[in-house]
């Protein structure tokens, strides 16, 4: 049996429950005959991918859902061969540059040129162009983005590019100015509540109390995917839902582990404690929890917990160490330094207070 998230993923623009205006814009655009290059951006869990798939369906019809996975081989300038998996239908192809690493420029250019030289053959095709979807476009190298610029103009007759990313910050200006920017905000808490109490509850024939749905929506940080997952795991844990279930919504293990670290640092600021925390951080890292996720969760937990007077300093400190983490090599150094810094700030504050 599939998870609820996958079961109730909308497949057409009409089924989308929130951001109706965006859906109708995309619908107009899809039916207008010529589509500009598109750049979808918004936080994760906002529904970008779902919307892209639905848009493609609107443009090409249900044919885009007949998907196959191919392995294709590319040759790098240094004559190395690399294999990557692509997902494609007769109308579109999807790639994820993070699968390709530093050779993204070669791979994307080869794909684009090859696709541009081929014509839409299917007699059912309503459009002359094909579409290349590039997921996680924020991780495209600058090199690959530069290469996209003129290509997007040259092959515009046969080809459209759809880019998908979390923030436009990492997409170079010249690429942005060749695209229509489509911002997909995260669903509001109300949107999520409606989704949980409406669509999911109705289809599963269960009742979801509004308070529980609201609590889930807030805890999910306005992330629809997480919210549905959380609802399903609460359901598995206990159904019918009870009033006190709010407090026992199961968090993922890694999140519980991070909260534990945050609490340890708030309880006691000492070298021994730091040593203990380091061990816990190592464990998280070895379970492939990204260092950035750990740092951000710690930061927001601490910002929430400390006195108002300290919050700004906490944010500055978190931002500094997160920046170092990005440019540095060894994640554990920066995470440990961050925890140590937090401890020193917090300890100084506690001493200050007790001396007054």
């Amino acid at each position, binding site marked *: 049996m599939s998870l609820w998230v996958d079961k109730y993923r909308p497949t057409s623009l009409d089924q989308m429950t929130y951001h109706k205006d965006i859906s109708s814009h995309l619908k107009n655009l899809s039916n207008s005959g010529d589509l500009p290059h598109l750049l979808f*951006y918004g936080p994760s869990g906002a529904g970008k991918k779902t919307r892209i798939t639905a848009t493609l369906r609107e443009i090409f019809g249900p044919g885009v859902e007949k998907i196959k996975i191919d392995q294709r081989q590319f040759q790098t300038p240094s004559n190395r061969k690399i294999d990557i998996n692509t997902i494609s239908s007769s109308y579109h192809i999807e790639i994820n540059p993070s699968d390709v690493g530093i050779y993204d420029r070669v791979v994307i250019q080869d794909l684009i040129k090859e696709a541009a030289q081929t014509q839409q053959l299917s007699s059912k095709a309503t459009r002359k162009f094909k579409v290349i979807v590039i997921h996680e476009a924020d991780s495209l190298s600058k090199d690959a983005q530069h290469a996209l610029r003129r290509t997007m103009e040259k092959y515009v007759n046969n080809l459209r590019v759809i880019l998908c990313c979390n923030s436009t910050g990492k997409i170079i200006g010249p690429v942005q100015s*060749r695209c229509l920017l489509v911002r997909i905000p995260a669903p509001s808490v109300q949107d999520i509540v409606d989704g949980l109490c409406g669509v999911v509850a109705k289809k599963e024939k269960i009742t979801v109390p509004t308070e529980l749905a609201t609590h889930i929506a807030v805890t999910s940080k306005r992330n629809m995917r997480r919210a549905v997952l959380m609802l399903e795991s609460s359901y598995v844990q206990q159904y019918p839902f009870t009033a006190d279930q709010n407090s026992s919504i199961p968090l993922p293990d890694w999140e519980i582990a991070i909260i534990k670290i945050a609490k340890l640092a708030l309880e006691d600021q000492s070298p021994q404690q730091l040593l203990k925390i380091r061990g816990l951080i190592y464990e998280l890292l070895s379970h492939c929890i990204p260092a950035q996720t750990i740092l951000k969760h710690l930061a927001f937990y601490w910002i929430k917990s400390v006195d*108002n007077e300290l919050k700004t300093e906490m944010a500055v400190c978190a931002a500094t160490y997160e920046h170092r983490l990005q440019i540095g090599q060894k994640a554990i150094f920066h995470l440990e330094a961050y925890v140590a810094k937090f401890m020193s700030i917090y300890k100084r504050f506690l001493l200050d207070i007790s001396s007054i």
Partner: protein
Amino acid sequence: MDDFFKGKSKAKKVDTSRANDVASTVPWVEKYRPDSLNKVCSQSETVNVLRESIQSKNLPHLLFYGPPGTGKTSTILALARDMYGPELVKSRILELNASDERGIQVVREKVKNFAKTMVGNNANESHGASLPPYKIIILDEADSMTEDAQAALRRTMETYSKVTRFCLICNYVSRIIEPLASRCAKFRFKPLPKTEMRAKLTQIVDGEKVACTEEAIEALIKTSEGDMRKAITSLQSAYHLSTTGKITDATVRDMTGVIPSTVIDKLMDAIQKDSFGDIQSVVDDLIYDGYSAAQILQQIHSHVIQNPEFSSLQKSKMALVFGTTDFALSEGADEQLQILSMNIPTGANYHFFKEGVKPMWEDSANANGGRWLVEYPRRVEKDINEKWINTMLALIGESYQDSQNICGIVFSNRKTCYRFSMWTRSPDTSQGIKEIGETFLKYLNRDKSNEIESIPFNRHVASRGAKPLFEAKKQ
């Protein structure tokens, strides 16, 4: 099911058969790309020089640089078309851009093959005039070529200089190595002025019979900042998006990702009130709504710079913060944390000074003087007003014995603390200074809240953290 890549061999046939039944899908940017030098807007200096060199058949190597969407690629393509006529142009230009393999070896090879076929000075029937005896090699997006590849290009340019002209195009001229740049005539492409943008957009609006308000055009011009490509793409998208069939400025703003000014006002309010909770809630919403940190930064920046409430010193301090944040962002730092931690120094100073004395160290009255200093943590917020009033009233009511030695008091609202300082003239008569300090402390402690035991006095010129010159103790 058809393969995504099938149909390569039949491309030609399919092309013609399908051309009619599928609507033409050329986007407006391509449709309205100038096909002759005459149609290139703005950039008149460049265009005039180029036109002259066509006439004199003496085209130098070219280097075009400037921001995106200002007509660099269009100009060279238009020039080639003007020179060779619409038919021959395809065989006379070689366009290599960043998407092509441009290692040293490849460029040499391609250029060699292309240049090999000599062009005769033959007359061309369709074009009338005789054609120039060289071909054009366009290296678009040349700033993404490695320095080595650029260096290797020097030789190639010289070897084939009889039969080819090179045109290098880039955004930043500094990315082109000097020996290469010095071989070319350089042309700077400026962002298009508003009038030119308006004219071109109006032409498209008329040509496509689109209903579009004046304000919408203005909004397009404003958001595209001289980038013609962006303006045209936005115009066409707005046209497709608008459900009513009419483009308004609201459609345009919606689409270009500009944050509504009410949200920015709310954020600035929170920043000025220095309320972390409020800042966090606005920033969270902005990030969840998908706005990019760069956009937030840019809009705060223009809000602050135009605001007369801030002194120029404050503005430069803020500029420093913006710079740091922008740098961190460009290095891939987390957007939410960066914006949240932007510690914009908006904190105010309140001065209460004797007539004729300016609240600056440089004022002759203060130059040799010093100050009594008190800092309260932010958590005492609710008692601060009372203290300010008490100290001011004491000053007005001449409660100080040595009052001619007093210059004034300053109250500063800082992120981390509230600070009072009592400024005095020269500290030579230590007795008078001490008395001022003790009286000052007395009035600060008068409301019995957050009482302070002793306060330090230092000269203005003393270095930070220096030992206090005097101390005043609670009596």
